């Protein structure tokens, strides 16, 4: 099911949570809404589900305007961060709930419901746990029951709100891979909310980066990581350092010192680069500073450097240094960013 979000605004007591947001979600796509808390990502998900209604704007499911449909009419599968399972019902009763509450003309027979439940349990790899109660399951199992319950109603789209937020790191990783497989197998249009960029980049076909009620950038993992469209995206996704610069007659200057060449535009702005996109040099015309800390980060080693030209406040940057050649604290390091981006003011 294709979903089109068109110029959505949402205010909570005059405080705008979403400001003129538009987004087109293709059928069968797996989309991540990524952003810090308060960026409006959960609000957007709840608007799609019909758990909240927009102040202005429309939401289309295919060609149909769903903006004023109730949550019951929209037929969406929604998975909550804390599972929201019915704790007085068994796993099987939880999963069958959506079928059992249908109006009698539309409700499958009891044996049919039972068959569907065991089919779904098999799909989420929990066969044999029909009779358990939610409090007898682990967090990962509960989340899969919640997913099976949402899938039971044959939803037009599947919405997940921080689906792995309450799980520990290992289970989280397993479930992430499992969800990708699950999505590829069932082909449902899926939107999930996360504040974990690793999760968003690894799992989603497209990532929607949000900040302060607005969409900053929409793109694949490569797009948002390699070609960030705004200072926010550059600093929010991955590690990066930021330096105030000025572009004059084709040269990028940091505190009067040339850093690179940029001929398209002149003026003041900020230069962004990633720790891995630098080269250590021995030339006089490079950036340099004192090493204030050096730390090991998984497969890399990162040096923290204070760039302090005379007469200027020091700037803190991070660069990657060779793993097997740790640099001494207090020593001077010279480097030049190889890949960088300037955002003009």
């Amino acid at each position: 099911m294709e979903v089109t979000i068109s110029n959505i605004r949402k205010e909570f007591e005059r405080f705008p949570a979403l400001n003129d947001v538009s987004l087109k979600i293709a059928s069968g796509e797996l989309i991540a809404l990524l952003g810090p808390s308060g960026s409006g990502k959960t609000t957007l998900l709840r608007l799609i589900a019909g758990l909240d209604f927009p102040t202005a704007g429309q939401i289309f499911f295919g060609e149909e305007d769903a903006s004023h449909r109730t949550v019951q009419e929209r037929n969406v599968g929604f998975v909550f961060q804390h599972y929201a399972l019915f704790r007085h019902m068994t796993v099987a009763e939880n999963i069958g709930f959506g079928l059992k509450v249908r109006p009698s003309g539309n409700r499958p027979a009891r044996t049919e419901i039972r068959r569907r439940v065991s089919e779904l349990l098999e799909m989420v790899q929990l066969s044999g746990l029909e009779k358990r109660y939610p409090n007898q399951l682990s967090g990962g199992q509960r989340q899969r029951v919640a997913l099976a319950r949402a899938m039971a109603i044959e939803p037009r789209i599947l919405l997940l709100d921080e689906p792995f937020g309450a799980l520990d790191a290992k289970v989280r990783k397993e479930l992430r891979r499992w969800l990708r497989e699950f999505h590829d197998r069932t082909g449902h249009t899926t939107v999930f909310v996360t504040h974990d960029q690793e999760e968003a980049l690894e799992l989603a076909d497209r990532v929607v980066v949000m900040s302060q009620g607005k969409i900053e950038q929409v793109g694949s993992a490569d797009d948002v990581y390699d070609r960030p469209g705004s200072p926010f995206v550059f600093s929010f996704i991955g590690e990066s350092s930021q330096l105030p610069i000025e572009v004059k007659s084709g040269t990028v200057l940091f505190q009067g010192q040339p850093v690179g060449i940029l001929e398209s535009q002149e003026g003041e702005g900020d230069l962004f680069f990633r720790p891995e996109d630098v080269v250590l040099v021995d030339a006089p015309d490079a950036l340099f500073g004192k090493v204030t800390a050096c730390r090991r980060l998984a497969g890399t080693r990162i040096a923290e450097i204070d760039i302090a030209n005379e007469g200027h406040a020091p700037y803190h940057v991070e660069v990657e240094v060779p793993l097997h050649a740790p640099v001494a604290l207090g020593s001077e390091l010279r480097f030049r960013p190889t890949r960088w981006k300037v955002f003009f003011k």
Partner: protein
Amino acid sequence: MTDTAAAHPVRWRLKRPSIIPGFGVTLGFSLAYLSLIILIPIAGLLWRTAGLGWEGFLAVLADRRTQDALYISFGTAFVAALVNVVFGVIVAWVLTRYDFPGRRLIDAMVDLPFALPTAVAGIALAALYAPNGWIGSLFMPFGLRIAFTPLGIVVALIFIGLPFVVRTVQPVMEEIDREVEEAAATLGANRFQTVFKVILPGLTPAILTGFALAFARGVGEYGSVIFIAGNIPYVSEIAPLLIVIRLEEFNYAGATAVATIMLLISFAMLFFINLVQAWSRRRYGHG
């Protein structure tokens, strides 16, 4: 290194029931307190009853007046507790779910039956529900007498028992996760189905507790009932009143016999309710 086991010779002791200190002191205090306040008086009651002999006891039990009084006491308490379950859950719902002017006032009013002298409540209710009272007169055209009948007893017991249901259900209701209701809605359940299939079953243990408390309180209530009941033997005479009547006749053994029977029935019923509660807690996974 010194051998620590040798330094502290092993003494025989009970398995420690918990890592939290103070078990001995608190258990001792609890037992002493329970003995003084509950166990010794009850033992005295049983001892007095025993003075009647087995046959005398059976004679009291076989008396129609005793039977009717017990039937009225337990029957009205049961009906009142049932009404309070419905009424109390709705009051708790209104107080937890909606924010409206005067909510705190109503919240405070719920506790009034706890504080008001029961006799005052009884007199006020009797005046209101009497055939010529404000409310009673409304029912008279339908031939329905409320005060001075078992119906009046039920009204008084509803008044007395309401706070028990509200105050046990309210905190549990406050903790219901909004997400659970939203989950039900996304699965297509309408409001009615959400309330009756999702919310209320989750409240079962709390509702049972409230019912048990309201029922127990109703069985023992005396002050308010005697003013509204009319106290007609075989019709609207409650067991506690019968006990007082026997005492006034200096028939102490007869009084304690009725009391003992009440005690046994109450204990059996409360024990049964407790079993149901334990079962529902296990099933619903909390409490």
